[in-house]
């Protein structure tokens, strides 16, 4: 399945595989997508962008990226072998052609004439180094578990590398578009400054304060980038961030809360962009602890989630009702035919009764660290009280939640960010031996399906396998997913070329490559 080199206008439209085009029509398109008709971009100008998180832990090392500001910074400075389009399909970037045999041995031809910001040409050695360093524990990579799949990465020609995987994975091109796998120079170990092949050169980087990128005149995408300079800062406080946008101090912000959208919409010079994403906060029922391992208890809790109320009251409509499985409607493998589980206290009572658990008392852990979970827990508590189940909401601080509470209590909330592929999400969070198998759910049938789907070349069969997995999770897994939470950005209307890439806010963190400033 070799990929040809698409020209620039086609880049956003071409889909990775031949069979994928059919699903494009079924994809929910978020309002305000600006990809369709591209007016002529203007060159020049300087914008300031405020993201939600910035601290002294900010990094220029792609392997260590953990927060939105990091992803934005890295996509600004570095390029990857592939990149995501608005359906999260992989498009060719530094790779000129990708072919595989048996989806295990991948051959990637590198684009010729690409130069790093210091003038050094891109070579296979850089790519090999950038990919293999994730396997070294000392790198501290967020992608270590994923990179374990790389059995071997080697230069196979002057402009070519080969990746041998431990087992077949048809999603490799999509994995390689993740910001962690962006390409750095061979041997880079000092990340005080950054040399990449991306659209902007790193002019200034001070952790927790700002990153300034200036236009890379030598960028490998002809005509791009458009802006002269981008200043990236972090404003943690939501109302300060919105104020900074409305006062004209910044041009673009992410993580706008639903109740601030009114203020932004009221301004004639600003707009809001909703991106329907795969972000969710989930109710975790541990399968290795009583009573949450009782299948009837799990079903009862799932019936007690008032999804419509959560969507409307907690997120003011900026959410999509979910169905206790993690693949969002925007994903091409989403199983639309799965019957929606309703809010049904009577059925919940039936299942609780069957489990012999009516009238028990149980703590449920929630924290501001998991978006909306405190309010969800309160709604759940109220619904449970009506059928005689006493839930005590334990609200714990965000600080330390992931290491101290998450996955550590029989009943608690967690949260998961959008992932580019169904395989990644299932492998990381639902597979029996997954590092973050949040509910401790073990299902051999699911694991088999997952491995089969990963190596499956036939797109229709693959979709069916992923559909079966969604049914299994929906019915049996100890995870309740009430809604998919939309990502909301606010921007100055002079910014053009802006749109949604459902990986995250700020255009899937990669706005830098796409936007220009209208005079």
């Amino acid at each position, binding site marked *: 399945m070799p990929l040809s080199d698409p020209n620039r206008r086609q880049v956003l439209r071409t889909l990775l595989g031949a069979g994928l085009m059919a699903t494009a029509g079924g994809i929910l398109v978020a309002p305000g997508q600006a990809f369709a008709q591209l007016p002529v971009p203007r060159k020049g100008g300087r914008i300031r962008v405020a993201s939600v998180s910035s601290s*002294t*832990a900010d990094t220029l090392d792609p392997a260590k990226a953990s927060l939105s500001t990091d992803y934005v910074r890295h996509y600004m400075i570095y390029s990857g072998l592939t990149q995501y389009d608005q359906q999260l399909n992989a498009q060719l970037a530094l790779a000129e052609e990708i072919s595989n045999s048996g989806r295990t041995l991948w051959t990637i031809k590198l684009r010729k004439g690409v130069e790093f910001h210091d003038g050094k040409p891109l070579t296979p050695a850089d790519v090999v180094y950038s990919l293999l360093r994730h396997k070294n*524990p000392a790198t501290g990579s967020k992608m270590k578990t994923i990179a374990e799949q790389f059995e071997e990465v080697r230069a196979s020609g002057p402009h070519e590398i080969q990746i041998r995987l431990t087992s077949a994975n048809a999603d490799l091109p999509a994995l390689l578009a993740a910001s962690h796998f962006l390409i750095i120079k061979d041997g880079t170990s000092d990340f005080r400054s950054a040399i990449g092949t991306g659209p902007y050169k790193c002019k200034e980087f001070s952790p927790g304060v700002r990153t300034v990128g200036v236009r890379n005149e030598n960028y490998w995408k002809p005509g791009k980038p458009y802006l002269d300079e981008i200043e990236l800062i972090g404003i*943690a406080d939501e109302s*300060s961030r919105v*104020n900074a946008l409305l006062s004209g101090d910044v041009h673009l912000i992410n993580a706008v809360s639903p109740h601030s959208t009114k203020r932004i919409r009221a301004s004639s010079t600003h707009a809001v962009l909703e991106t329907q994403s795969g972000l969710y906060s989930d109710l975790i029922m541990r399968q290795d602890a009583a009573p949450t391992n009782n299948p009837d208890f799990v079903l009862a809790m799932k019936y007690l989630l008032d999804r419509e109320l959560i969507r409307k009251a907690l997120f003011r409509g900026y959410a999509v009702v979910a169905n206790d499985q993690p693949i969002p409607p925007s994903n091409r493998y989403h199983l639309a035919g799965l019957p929606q589980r309703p809010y049904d206290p009577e059925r919940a009572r039936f299942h609780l009764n069957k489990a012999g658990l009516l009238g028990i008392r149980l703590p449920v852990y929630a924290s501001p660290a998991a978006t909306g979970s405190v309010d969800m827990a309160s709604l759940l508590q109220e619904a449970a009280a009506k059928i005689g189940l006493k839930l005590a909401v334990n609200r714990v601080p965000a600080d*330390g939640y*992931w290491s101290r509470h998450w996955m550590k209590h029989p009943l608690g909330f967690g949260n998961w960010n959008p992932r580019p592929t169904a395989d990644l999400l299932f492998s990381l969070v639902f597979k029996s031996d997954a590092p973050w198998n949040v509910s401790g759910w073990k299902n051999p049938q699911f694991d088999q399906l997952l491995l089969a789907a990963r190596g499956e070349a036939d797109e229709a069969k693959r979709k069916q396998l992923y559909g079966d997995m969604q049914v299994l999770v929906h019915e049996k897994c100890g995870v309740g997913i009430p809604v998919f939470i939309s990502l909301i950005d606010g921007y100055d209307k002079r910014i053009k070329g802006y749109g949604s890439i459902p990986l995250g806010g700020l255009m899937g963190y990669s706005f830098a490559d796409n936007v220009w400033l209208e005079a």
Partner: protein
Amino acid sequence: MNTILFLVARRIGVAALTLLLVSAVVFAITSLLPGDAAEEALGQGATPETVAALRVQLGLDQPGHIRYARWLTGLVSGDPGQSLANHLPVSELIASRLPKSMVLAGTTAAVSVPLALLLGILSAMFRGGRVDRIVNLFTLAMVAVPEFLVATLAVLLFAVKLHWLSALSSPPDNPTLAQFLRVYAMPVMTLSFVIVAQMARMTRAALIDQLEQTYVEMAILKGAGPTRVVLRHALPNAIGPIANAIALSLSYLLGGAIIVETIFNYPGIASLMVDAVTSRDMPLLQASAMIFCAVYLSLVLIADVCAIVSNPKLKGH
């Protein structure tokens, strides 16, 4: 003169001892925080294997007393170590933030101290009168309104509505006067709100205390005018408590400026310390805490020296 020198030297010795104790307390308390730098850095993505690898890399697998000894010797020899969050030298991180905090604190002090003294002296001179009551009402109201409210209202009015000032205060490297005013107007105003009120009220109280002494009565009987009585006779005796009140208020300007730094996104040292807490970056956290403590101690020391030097009773010797 020798008595004064001796007093000052003794105070400095006590301050050094206090710093040492504080360092131990800070180290002990920070190690009580749940989680460590390795867990925080990996966040949701932590697995036992990666956490253990990172701990070894960061030296967190060593026992506490060894880490303390290592850190303390480093600190004494002028090297506060490396940040666990981003591997930059702590001194470099602090060097980029401390001057900015100093500028903010200095500007606020330059605005608020004269204003507070003026208000305090005026209301003491006219105590019980209309001026006094207005100043009282005003300062009490300022103390009562939380600074985040002042700051947010100021941003909504001056930045969002009127577009006069910037909602963010990121100071350029070499600001012109206009830029300087634009960046610092709102943070300085917000911080002044809190500390002017405190200092003015303390000044008033200290001064009134002196004005009720018999020597002031004597001065008035001798025919000294009210201004002369206050400035020449009462004020020098009140400098001790006033200087202490000012020192306390100013020490707040470094660490206590966190709310202002957050709302205006000002890159000061208080937010650096909060970052350090969230990322469990102990070397940075401990160094910041030591700086706050050292600044506090030196301010109090200066206040004491002021009190000693200005004391007319000591001058006679």
